[in-house]
C-alpha cells in the first residue's frame, strides 16, 4: 500500500439544509480505476463537484498528492492535475476539434503567458496523440458542435486526457452511446488507467462490467459498500437500496 493519490475524508456538503454528501470518504491509488454507482441523488456528481472545487464542503477535507485542496478555486485544482468530464458534453461548439484539444493541452494557462501566436511542439504532439487515442483524427477540423453525440463524449474525454491530469473524473462517459461505442469507451478507459487514475460514474452495468474495476456504491451522500462488481451484485442490502433498480443490477 502506497499513499493514495486522492483522499476524500468525511466530506459533508449541504444545499439549503439537505445534505447531498454526508460524511463521504473515498481513497484512490495512482493508476487505478474506481467506478462510482448509486441511485439518483446519491451524491455522485456532487462528489465530483467537491473534488474539483465547484462545491465547497461544510465539513471534511479533500487531499490530492499530499496537499489539501478543499477550498481551492477550480482552476487552481485543475492546474494541480485533476480534470473533469461533465455529464452533458462540455465542449466548445464554436471551436474545431483540434482547437478544443489545443485549449486543453496548453501547458501554460496563466493569463500572462498566453500572449504568443501559434502552438509549441509539445502541445501539438500531445494533441495529435490524443486525436489518435480517441479516434477523431479525421474530424480534426470539424466544428465540435457538429460531431455526433458519441464523438462529443470522446472529444471531451480527449480534452480531459490532453490536459495531462493525473486524476480524471468522468461523469457518465458512456451515456447515450451505442453498444459498440460504449465498449470502445471502456477499452479507452482501461488504456488510460496505465498512466492516470480515473474516477468514473456510470449507471450502465454492462459498461461498468467492461471496466473490470473496483466499484464503490454511494447512497444518501455516503459510501455504502466497496468491492468488485460481483460482490456488489450479490449484496442484498444494495439490492434493497436500488429498490426499483434491483432488476437492472441483477440482469447486468
Amino acid at each position, binding site marked *: 500500500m502506497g499513499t493514495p493519490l486522492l483522499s476524500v475524508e468525511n466530506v459533508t456538503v449541504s444545499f439549503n439544509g439537505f445534505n447531498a454528501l454526508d460524511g463521504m470518504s473515498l481513497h484512490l491509488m495512482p493508476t487505478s480505476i474506481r467506478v462510482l454507482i448509486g441511485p439518483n441523488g446519491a451524491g455522485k456528481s456532487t462528489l465530483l463537484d467537491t473534488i474539483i472545487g465547484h462545491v465547497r464542503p461544510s465539513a471534511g477535507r479533500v487531499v490530492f498528492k499530499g496537499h489539501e485542496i478543499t477550498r481551492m478555486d477550480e482552476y487552481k485544482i485543475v492546474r494541480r492535475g485533476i480534470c473533469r468530464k461533465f455529464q452533458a458534453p462540455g465542449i466548445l461548439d464554436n471551436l474545431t476539434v483540434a482547437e478544443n484539444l489545443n485549449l486543453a493541452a496548453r501547458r501554460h494557462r496563466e493569463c500572462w503567458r498566453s*500572449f504568443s501566436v501559434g502552438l509549441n511542439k509539445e502541445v501539438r504532439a500531445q494533441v495529435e496523440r490524443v486525436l489518435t487515442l480517441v479516434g477523431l483524427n479525421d474530424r480534426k*477540423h470539424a466544428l465540435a458542435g457538429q460531431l455526433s453525440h458519441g464523438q462529443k463524449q470522446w472529444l471531451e474525454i480527449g480534452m480531459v486526457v490532453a490536459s495531462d491530469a493525473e486524476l480524471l473524473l468522468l461523469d457518465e462517459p458512456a451515456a447515450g452511446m451505442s453498444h459498440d461505442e460504449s465498449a470502445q469507451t471502456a477499452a479507452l478507459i482501461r488504456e488510460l488507467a496505465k498512466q492516470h487514475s480515473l474516477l468514473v460514474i456510470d449507471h450502465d452495468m454492462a459498461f461498468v462490467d467492461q471496466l473490470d474495476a473496483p466499484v464503490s456504491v454511494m447512497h444518501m451522500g455516503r459510501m455504502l459498500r466497496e468491492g468488485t462488481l460481483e460482490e456488489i451484485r450479490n449484496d442484498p442490502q444494495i439490492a434493497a437500496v436500488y429498490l426499483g433498480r434491483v432488476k437492472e443490477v441483477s440482469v447486468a
Partner: protein
Amino acid sequence: MKKWSALSLDIVLLAALALAPLYLSAYHLSLLGRFLALAVLSLGISVIWGWGGILSLGQGVFWGLGAYVLAMHLKLTGLAPGDLPDFMMWSGLDHLPAWWKIFEHPAVAIAGVVVIPTIAGGLLAWLVFNRRVSGVYFSLLTQALALAFSTLLISQQAYTGGFNGLTDFSTILGHPMIDPGFQRNIYWITLGVLVLASIACRWLTHTAFGRVLVAIRDGESRVRFLGYHPAAYKTIAFAFGAMLAGISGALYVVHVGVISPAMVGVIPSIEMVIAVAVGGRSSLTGVVLGTLLVNFGKDWISSAMPEMWQLAMGALFILVVTALPQGLAGIPGLVEKLVLWSKGKREAKMADQPAIALVEKD
C-alpha cells in the same frame, strides 16, 4: 483565399483613408478625423464584445477619462503662469488642485490618458468578474457607472467645468490648434494611432489569449475546468478595451476642442456600441467601417432632421440585432451561404466554417 480578400479590403480602406486629405474638403476631413478617433474606441469594444462576449454600456466613462485628462492638460497649457481656469475662479477656488497640476507636463498627461482608463477599467472588471458576475449584470453595472460618471462631472463644477465641460483650448505642444496645417497633421496622427491600434487588436486576437477569450465567451465554466482563470483573461481584455477608449477620447478632444459630461454619459456610451454592432462586433475592419458609417449617418440625419436621429438609432439597434447580428461584416457570409444554399452545397460547407462563428451563445 478568404484571407486575401479580407486583407485587400484592409489595404483599400487604408489607402482611401490615407489619401482622404487629397479629395475631402476641410470640413469633411475634420469630420473623418474625429470619427477615426472614435474608431479606436470601437476596436476596443470589438475585442471585449466580439471576442470576449462582454457588453459594456459604459465605454463613455473610459473614453471620458482619457478625454478629460488631455483636456485638463490643454486647459493648463493655455493659461498664463499662476492663473486658474475661468470656471475655477467663478466657483471660488483660489488655487489649482494638485491632481490638476500634475497634468501640466505633456508626458504626464499622455501617460495619464493611457494609464488612468486602463487601471479604472481593469479594477472594475476584476471586482466584478472575479466574483463571477457577468453577462447582463455587467452590462447594467457599466451603464450605472456611465450615469454616475456624468452626474459626478456635472456636479463637481469647480473641478470639472460642470455641465459645460472643458473647452477653449488654444495650443497643443506649442502648436496653435486652429491652424489648417495642424488639422491635417492631427488627421495623420489619428490615422497612425488607428493603424497601430488595429495591428495590436489583430495580434491580440491571434494569440493564445484571443483563443482562450473566445472559449470563455462560449463556455466559461468549461474553460475554468481546464485550468484557466476566466476572470484574469476577461479583466485584461476589458482593461485593453478601456485603454483604447482613453486614447480615443484624448484624440477626439484634440479634434473637436471640447469635452463635456453630455459626451460621456449613458446615451453616448450606447451610441459607441451601435457603431460596433453595425460594423460587425467581431470584425476589426467592420467596426472601423461601421463607426464611420454610423457617425457620418448621424451627422447627416441630425443636421437634416434632428428629431429623426434617435428614431433611426433605435430602429438600427433592433434591425442589426435581429436581422444582422454579425453586422456589415456578416453580409459576405450571408451572401455566400445563400449562393451555396441555392447550389445545394450547404451540407458540405457547414463542416469548415471559420472557428470564430460569432453568434452569441450562453
